[in-house]
């Protein structure tokens, strides 16, 4: 069997984090989740990180999603990052500046997000 894709999902809203984690786990992804930027960053910096794709909320406690995007794009420029945001234009434009591969506004449909993930993974 092919090795499943490894995803890191960061969101401080528990319902969303659980929903996304469950959804992608069911779709046979290998999902790691974090509820704030620092915990997410620790996963990214850990030795066995090798994430295929990262999904992050933008407004987070301590380390923002914008910071996560900047750090990932510097360390692993080839790892695609999807930003999800419910906070309007400002964080969104910052995410684009930090070179997020895609910014998805809340609310969105899970299949829509999955399509996006597939597209970025097949690039």
């Amino acid at each position, binding site marked *: 069997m092919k090795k499943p894709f490894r995803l890191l999902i960061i969101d401080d809203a528990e319902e969303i984090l659980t929903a996304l984690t469950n959804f992608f786990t069911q779709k046979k992804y290998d999902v790691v989740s974090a509820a704030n930027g*620092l915990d997410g*960053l*620790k996963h990214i*910096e850990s030795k066995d990180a090798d994430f295929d794709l990262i999904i992050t909320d933008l407004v987070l*406690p*301590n*380390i*923002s999603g*914008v*910071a996560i995007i*900047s*750090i990932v794009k510097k360390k692993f420029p080839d790892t695609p990052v999807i930003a999800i945001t419910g*906070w309007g234009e*400002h*964080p969104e434009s*910052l995410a684009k500046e930090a070179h997020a591969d895609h910014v998805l506004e809340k609310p969105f449909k899970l299949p829509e997000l999955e399509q996006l993930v597939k597209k970025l993974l097949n690039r």
Partner: protein
Amino acid sequence: MSDNSKSKTGPPIVGVSKNIVRVRELIEHVAQTGLNTVVFGESGVGKEVVAQNLYQKSPRVGKPFIKINCAALPEGLLESELFGYERGAFTGAEQRKKGKFQLAHSGVLLLDEIGDMSLSLQAKLLHVLQSGGEFSPLGSEKEVKADTWVIAATNHDLKKEIKEGKFREDLYYRLNIIKIHLSPLRERPEDIPPLIDFYIKEYTAMLNNRHIETPGAKVIDRMCTYSWPGNVRELQNVLKRMLVLGDCNQIVDEIFNSERMVSRDSGPDDELNHNASLAKIIDLGGRNSPDNQSFSLKTAKKNAVEMVEREIISHVLAKTDWNRSKASKILKISYKTLLYKISDLKIVPPEK
């Protein structure tokens, strides 16, 4: 002491609380990034220590660490301090002057009390941050570019200030790429014993290890239940007092008493009124004597008002252990006004 020399030996962040442990961990992870950072917390909680630690653990260590207090200067002066000016940019600009942004090039610029920056300067700062550090000094056509790591500190609730229209939302998000929150000391009393320990060692070394009375277990227990409105800075002052004066119990009694004084919605202090007649307070025999050349009702009134203001403000500051934010609330004037008055009336803090 210059900003540069102080920063090289910033103190460690002492504490065992969840908040402090997390903050230390956060610093380890973000100091390398140079991403815009805001440190939130009440006065005296250690915001500057956090900024210094970020700097020390960053690749920018050894480069300039420049601090500027956005609340202490009037708008125009703050602007020229930040961005500098060309010779002749305005009357009095006899020499070209580099701004702090430029002086902090390749290092760190700490924008203290960012919540007090005027909206128009906020716009200018936003512009500089958006352009990656480009700006033109006052009176100059040319753009300068500074690679400066901006760390801001504030004791304001910026979210609330956005709602009130006092802080720009776009600037808020641009600065808050990393957010570090320091809890007030009263919410992490478990940090008090290690802080006491740390500073007692430090101060006794300074006092040449002369035999001195240090607070015992009972006193430390009591200190853990006090509210510390001035946070770690107040704790430092109390410890210094204890080491110099001895009689730790008495000093703890005093801080609890002053706590009651401040929280009690106190009317004017009687001492002020009883001991001197009005003519004496106004100094009609001396500085404000009608015999003086410069006498006029207007100047005498101005002098008298200043005297009264100085007296009242000093009194409240002493009672709040120089917690300016608390003092401004008691005085019912804005924090900014208070800082302005402190400098205008030349009120100086007690020796630390």
